[in-house]
């Protein structure tokens, strides 16, 4: 990797090489991840439902998603006449940007993240909420009542669930005494999930809601809103929303792993740095698997119940948890 970096640095400069390798690597991996996660989702749902799932294309259907992508690529891209054209076409692209920015912030291994920031966690919290703008753009510009309802639900939901996510992340900040994701990981000798089980749970619920996953998938509640915000999208544009959902799941899962499960840390990760990303991804995928498991087990909440759950339960509990953390830390300093 460093040899490749050196070669590129001589050609296009140090900054250019880092950008190319980092952005290229992240994009490449996230694309692979989407293919893998869609396959995994189908397998998890199938086994939850006593089925086999895709079995025909490739070993255990591993290439099924690629076949599906080819099918979606070959489909006609329908743009309904009454849409707000620019917004309609831009939304599926925009939905990726914050997620990819997020991915570059997560510390991958002993070395560092692709983009290091002293206030990384603050940026993470901000970016994770921005995706909703693209969803609302998609819903609003579709000029479809179901889509508008889906978009509005999404905004209300993300605004509500961002707060518990932030509050539970703050509990970690109190312990780590830093907003730098790298330092949070390196200070994490015991996974913070053990110190902060409540915060970890709230964070998990919050990111499930932020990624619009069941039981919080009301913006695209199939049985109510047909397709929700993406009702009017067809072909690859429709697929892009799925791409974004699965990318978001992994990235937020990795953020969760960074905050609560020790990030890239693991046995021998210090000696062999390449193990860092492996541990991080493993932990991220565990979180993703839990999200899938929940999706195929629970019914969907109603919109007002979802709001009540966030405002009346999660936020007060997160606040109390934060307060307790602060008091305990004053009484028994960790360092």
């Amino acid at each position: 990797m460093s040899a490749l970096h050196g070669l590129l640095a001589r050609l296009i400069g140090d900054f250019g090489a880092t950008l190319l390798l980092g952005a290229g690597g992240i994009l490449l991996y996230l694309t692979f991840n989407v293919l893998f996660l869609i396959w995994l989702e189908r397998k998890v749902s199938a086994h939850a439902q006593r089925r086999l799932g895709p079995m025909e294309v490739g070993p255990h259907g591993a290439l099924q998603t690629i076949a599906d992508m080819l099918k979606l690529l070959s489909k006609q891209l329908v743009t309904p006449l009454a849409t707000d054209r620019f917004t309609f076409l831009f939304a599926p692209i925009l939905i990726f940007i914050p997620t990819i920015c997020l991915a570059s912030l997560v510390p991958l291994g002993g070395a560092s993240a692709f983009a290091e920031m002293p206030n990384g966690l603050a940026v993470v919290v901000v970016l994770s909420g921005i995706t909703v703008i693209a969803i609302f753009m998609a819903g609003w510009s579709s000029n479809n009542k179901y889509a508008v309802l889906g978009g509005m639900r999404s905004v209300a939901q993300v605004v509500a669930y961002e707060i518990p996510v932030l509050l539970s992340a703050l509990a970690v900040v109190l312990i780590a005494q830093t907003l730098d994701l790298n330092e949070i990981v390196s200070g994490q000798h015991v996974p913070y999930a053990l110190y902060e089980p409540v915060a970890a749970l709230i964070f998990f619920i919050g990111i499930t809601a932020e990624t619009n996953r069941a039981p919080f998938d009301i913006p695209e509640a199939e049985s109510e809103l047909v397709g929700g915000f993406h009702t009017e999208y067809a072909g690859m544009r429709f697929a892009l929303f799925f791409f974004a959902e699965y990318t978001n799941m992994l990235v937020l899962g990795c953020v969760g792993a960074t905050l609560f499960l020790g990030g890239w840390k693991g046995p021998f990760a210090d000696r062999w740095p390449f193990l860092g990303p492996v541990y991080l991804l493993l932990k991220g995928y565990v979180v993703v698997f839990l999200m899938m498991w929940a999706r195929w087990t629970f019914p969907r909440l109603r919109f007002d119940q979802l709001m009540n759950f966030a405002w009346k339960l999660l936020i007060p509990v997160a606040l109390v948890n934060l307060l307790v953390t602060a008091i305990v830390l004053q009484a028994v300093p960790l360092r």
Partner: protein
Amino acid sequence: MTNPPVPDALDTYVLNMGPQHPSTHGVLRMKLTLRGEEIVAAEPVIGYSHRAHEKMAENRTYAQFLPNTSRQDYLSGIIYNFAWVEAVEKMAGIQVPERALVARVVLAELNRVASHLLWIGAFLLDLGAATPFLYAWDDREAILFLLESVTGSRLTYCTGRFGGLSRDLDADFPRRAREVIAKLRARWDEYEGLIEDNVIFVNRAKGVGVLSRDLCLSYGVTGPSLRGSGVAYDVRKAEPYGAYPRFAFDVPTRTEGDVFARYMVRVLEMRQSVRIIEQALDQLPAGPILNPDSIGVKKRLKLPAGTQYYAVESARGHYGILLVSEGGTEPYRAKFRTPSYPNLAVLADVMPGHMVADAVAVLGSVDLVMPEVDR
């Protein structure tokens, strides 16, 4: 059905739910007037799958109409099939062998369980839980195999004949049926924990879509939807027909009248149906399955002139057939009183005040079959 009052305020809009919508179970269109996500008025628009069964009955012999019967309600078709057969038998005075009477009860109750299982799956799918759907269909599949082995079809059964059944239950049938029942019972215990104790499900279902007792009675709501509102009306008990008086079973009721009550009534009803099947299998008499004196389907049956009403309890409620004969080979008029029609009509009164998500839950909870509403 009167048009609901439409508020002329500018803050409402109309959302057409259906006829192509994942949760309208076929081709129902709900015209919802919404304020934000709250329903102000709801108007069911029907007729998208009208096939003129009643008119067709006037132009066919009694036997030729047999295949139509199970196509009215494709989920509990055998009950509708037997209802037509029994209505004609009663009017013509055809004797039915004991074995056929009991076998009809077995098949009809199996079909009722299959219908309720499908409902549970589809209803939970409406609430956003995809997994129970496949479990319920897996259970239903076992029943469909049983029914297929007797009738030769999986959905639109046409096994009733005037004077019995077209085919006999084979010697192995009771054993296989008991195996299926044992499997179902074990599954139901599992579902109770997974569904009825699930906080999300209970919150979505309790206190939602309350049908009061009086409202049900004024609209003529029947079946599990009525029993969920505290009225123990079941045609099998109220006006016993066929071999039902011989079997001991309860009519489960709940008083709340909400979505959860309707769910519970159906779940308990499946257990009662299974109880009936077991008793019927125990006392299944030997003998012919078809009255040897009855005429076959190819001959034309003539009914004496007169009017007669015959009702059965279908999986959805009170299903009645009004037969008017002028003495010919075809009915002068056949009117079908299908339970889903009033069960749907009552929803216009219940929906206002609920959220869109509740509309789906309420709509699902009354177990509509649209071809049966439209006929």
